[in-house]
């Protein structure tokens, strides 16, 4: 008896270790916020489908969402040619699709052919289309393939993070996946059920098969309040991307369930309409084109108050086009934006404006007054406009706020150009500045302050054009970074976009989920889905 007790005590750590670490298996239950439009990974164009692609798709190279570095996935290694036109992948051996068919270079060639076929209209494929011409996939062997593009592609390897490999030989191609899960059931408007891929190639450090979870239930739920209520009831174990108000409410009740991954990539920004064809009075056009005017507006807006009041403190004042969350591309030498209404007045006065009896006037005596538009139904933006209105009144500027439905707003921004200033958000999902090409090139459609210019209207826009093209063609990341740092510097000096805040990435994770460590990149709370496991059933769900 004594001996057996001693044996038990000696073995106890081994017996209880898996329980302490959490159990393998179980089901994770959370929501996606829209109907997935497709399960075909090459056609993905919406957030819900993108989440499912992330959970089911196997990629050659994976961007580690935490370190922001590229890691080998289905490709054990890869090489990019010096001219950046071709990439050679050396594939992992012995990998099987979820339906048991073997993974070979055939599948990579098949996927690339489908992706680049103009008839497919693949949004993912668009990122690879640097110029006209066909893409060739040359199979060197069953586990090596070279893909050659007609022109150099910037950040070529990074783009493969979005390319989920399809099976060339499976009868049900969309259902044969190389990712950790496969779609086992889909009830439109209700849920998508994912089952563990029994053939998933990845193993943990101890050699155990991944993923740990048996299944994932993704409920289709647009209403975020209902999602929060269900999480509180314990019906859901995870909420991705909570808004600040919901997060704060949850934090007050159950602080242990809230996770703040820090400043995210998304920004809120304000810009003035500088389009030559805008049907605005000449006086207004002149103000909006004056750098000192834009700088003064930037200085007169209290970003700290925006963060504290509108976002409950879960945001940071924005520096410029790149959030500090973008570890590699952020220009750390940029000065933090400073709230200084006195200096703002001094700056506009130097530019010929006059401040008389609490009213700012231009050199011709016109009162400085403009209309700030934003989209209706966004409570945070409506609050921000009210705060900007008060901040700018301190330097004698009258701001009229108008909220418009989104289609009307887009019509004014892109077709009629009939607006003074606009407040909107910039959703950034890609780390590489190449994805912002259409924003920064003066000929770009997304160059919002003055889009689709035939020739750059200003010298600084011409310089940005040159730098953006040079960075795209630069041979090393270091050179690209140097050029894009200068773009960020010019943007800070000229303030074509007045960046206001970068929102924090907020999520909620039940105490029953083990291994969750939300990050700022998509998909924030479940980026490491393979490593997530469920705790003991008694702990399932939130406490409230």
């Amino acid at each position, binding site marked *: 008896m004594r001996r057996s007790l001693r044996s038990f005590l000696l073995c106890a750590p081994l017996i209880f270790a898996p329980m302490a670490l959490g159990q393998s298996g179980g089901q994770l239950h959370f929501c996606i916020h829209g109907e997935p439009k497709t399960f075909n990974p090459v056609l993905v164009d919406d957030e819900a489908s993108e989440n499912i692609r992330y959970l089911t798709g196997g990629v050659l190279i994976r961007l580690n969402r935490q370190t922001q570095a590229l890691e080998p996935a289905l490709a054990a290694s890869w090489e990019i040619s010096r001219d950046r036109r071709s990439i050679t992948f050396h594939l992992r051996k012995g990998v099987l699709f979820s339906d048991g068919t073997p993974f070979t270079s055939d599948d990579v060639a098949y996927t690339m052919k489908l992706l680049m076929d103009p008839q497919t209209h693949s949004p993912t494929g668009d990122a690879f289309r640097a110029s006209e011409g066909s893409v060739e996939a040359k199979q060197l062997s069953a586990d090596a393939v070279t893909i050659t593009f007609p022109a150099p592609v910037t950040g070529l390897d990074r783009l493969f993070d979005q390319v989920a490999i399809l099976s060339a030989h499976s009868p049900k191609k969309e259902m044969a996946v190389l990712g950790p899960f496969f779609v086992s059931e889909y009830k439109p408007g209700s849920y998508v059920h994912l089952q563990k891929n029994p053939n998933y190639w990845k193993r943990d450090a101890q050699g155990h098969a991944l993923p740990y979870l048996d299944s994932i239930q993704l409920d289709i739920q647009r209403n975020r309040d209902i999602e929060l209520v269900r999480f509180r009831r314990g019906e859901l174990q995870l909420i991705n991307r909570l808004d600040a108000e919901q997060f704060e409410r949850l934090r007050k009740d159950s602080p242990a369930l809230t996770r703040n991954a820090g400043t995210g990539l998304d920004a809120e920004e304000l810009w003035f309409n500088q389009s030559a064809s805008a049907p605005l009075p000449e006086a207004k056009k002149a103000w909006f084109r004056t750098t000192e005017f834009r700088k003064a507006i930037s200085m007169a807006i209290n970003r700290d*108050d925006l963060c*504290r*009041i509108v976002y409950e403190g879960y945001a940071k004042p924005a520096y410029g086009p790149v959030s500090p969350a973008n570890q590699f591309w952020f220009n750390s030498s940029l000065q933090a934006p400073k709230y200084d209404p006195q200096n703002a007045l001094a700056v506009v006065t130097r530019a010929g404006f006059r401040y008389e009896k609490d009213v700012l006037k231009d050199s011709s005596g016109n009162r400085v007054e403009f209309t700030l538009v934003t989209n*209706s139904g966004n409570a945070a933006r409506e609050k921000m406009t009210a705060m900007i209105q008060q901040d700018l009144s301190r330097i004698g500027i009258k701001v*009229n706020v108008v909220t*418009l439905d989104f289609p009307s707003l887009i019509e004014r921004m892109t077709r009629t150009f009939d607006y003074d200033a606009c407040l909107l958000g910039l959703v950034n999902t890609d780390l590489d500045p190449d994805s912002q090409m259409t924003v920064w090139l003066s000929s770009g459609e997304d160059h919002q302050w003055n889009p689709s210019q035939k020739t750059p209207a200003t010298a600084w826009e011409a310089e940005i054009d040159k730098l953006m093209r040079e960075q795209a063609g630069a041979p090393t990341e270091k050179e690209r970074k140097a050029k894009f740092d200068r773009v960020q510097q010019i943007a800070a000096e000229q303030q074509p976009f007045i960046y206001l805040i970068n929102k924090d990435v907020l999520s909620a994770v039940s105490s029953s989920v083990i291994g969750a460590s939300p990050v700022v990149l998509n998909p924030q709370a479940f980026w490491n889905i393979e490593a997530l496991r469920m705790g003991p059933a008694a702990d399932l769900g939130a406490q409230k």
Partner: protein
Amino acid sequence: MKSFRNVRWICAALLCAIFLAGIFAGGITHYSYATQFRERPNAAPSVSHLLGTDGLGRDLFARVLYGTRVSLLLAPAAALLSTFIAGFFGALAGLAGGWCEKCILAAADLGMALPLLFVLMALRAVLPLDVDPMLSLVATFTLLGLLGWASSLRVVWAATQSLRNSDFVLLARATGCPPSRILLRHVLPNLRPVLFAQFWISIPVYVLAEATLSMLGLGVTEPLPSWGNLLRGLEDFSLVAANPWRIFPLLLLILAVTSFQLILPSQEEIA
């Protein structure tokens, strides 16, 4: 009967008090409805802020008072406009009959079938942006009044139809009374309870419609308050639960609407 009269007096006094508080808002509170006390967002009621502050730190009492001015002056004006249109055309359709009735009813049906929200959105899209907030406000309520008559018209038309065959109208016709006199002297006075009811019912509808429209940028724009945009703050139930004083604009709306209803003369009194 006497006690009901007392209730009516109390309601009338309450409405007068609310109206006067709105009109003399500047004398009652020294706070501006727009000033943001950013160190005190969502503050609880206190001596300095009787109803606390909103999410931006604006004094809620001042916003309710100024919002009363906007809503209680403009919503009845819009209700009056729509009731006038509904009363005139409803009575005309009910009395005239024939093609005139068909045309008016068809117009009412068309009015009811139109997706008003989209009509208003389209209208907002073509309006210039740099409209003065006050002008935008008046335009909004005028628009509501001009577009909101259709359902009232149906009610008025139905009431007129029953009057058309009544003895006193038949007698008036028999004595050679011209149609205009029948309409103005015999039918419209008898439609008074229906018209009053339509008018009072329309007021809260317009107050709430304004709240919806402000989401489309057609209604009251920041920083001007109205009962509509103050009620929008109640959409988030948990926020209200955490800050129960935020419910005051709703209580005021209920009080005003109930008072409007209770000061209506009853059918017996009209008779």
